[in-house]
């Protein structure tokens, strides 16, 4: 399995989110100044994944799953619950991503999975 490059994925997430519009670009810059690069980048990854996977606002993107084998890990009691927050689907997607060497922070998980599967053939 190839080494997963989380930093490259996070950089791509920031670029992708910043490209949405000037408001997003300004928002990410402000987040980087206030909270630092890593947190701002994870925020960008979360937004990009939620958008490209067409998630509802309360659904969890793959980058927020701490343990792909147990999606309940790290999720607080205020989460809606597995019936509606998509944690199992997020974990399922994350397992596929990790198995193919795709970073959990990739802003477009499905495209990255498809590209990795093509390379593997």
């Amino acid at each position: 399995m190839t080494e997963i490059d989380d930093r490259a994925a996070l950089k791509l997430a920031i670029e992708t989110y910043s490209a949405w519009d000037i408001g997003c670009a300004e928002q990410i810059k402000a987040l980087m100044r206030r909270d630092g690069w890593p947190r701002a980048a994870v925020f960008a990854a979360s937004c990009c994944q939620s958008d490209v996977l067409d998630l509802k606002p309360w659904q969890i993107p793959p980058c927020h799953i701490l343990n792909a084998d147990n999606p309940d890990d790290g999720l607080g009691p205020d989460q809606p619950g597995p019936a509606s927050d998509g944690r199992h689907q997020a974990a399922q997607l994350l397992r596929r991503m990790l198995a193919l060497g795709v970073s959990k922070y990739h802003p477009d998980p499905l495209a990255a999975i498809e590209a990795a599967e093509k390379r593997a053939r």
Partner: protein
Amino acid sequence: MPRRSSADLSVIQLNAGASRLRPPASLSEAERTVFVDLVSTNKPEHFQPSDMPLLVRYCEATALGDLAAEHLRTEGAVIGGRPSPWIVVQEKAVRSMLGLSMRLRLSPQARAPNNPSRQRATSAYERLRLTDDRD
């Protein structure tokens, strides 16, 4: 959202904050009401001056849609055995509103989070769930 009276519209907003766009003089009374309702119920920074052309078109379409709806309510959808011409007017007005509301980020989908992207019939998670159910 109830329509505001002309007296209410003439009241100066004390808590203007960041300046909101003001309706251009070219708007009719009905269009002006839509404009003020819209601008005053969104954050001041939601609309930029560069949004004005789109915003004006949206207000025109909304007012026209309302007018068409009123005609259809009072005159009926069929007049003299033929479909009312207001049906086409309403359809076109609604179509304009749909397109403009996405670009002005007025629709729920467009509001979260600065979302410029296309819509799919089902989300990736729903498709995964469907796949699981069939296995």
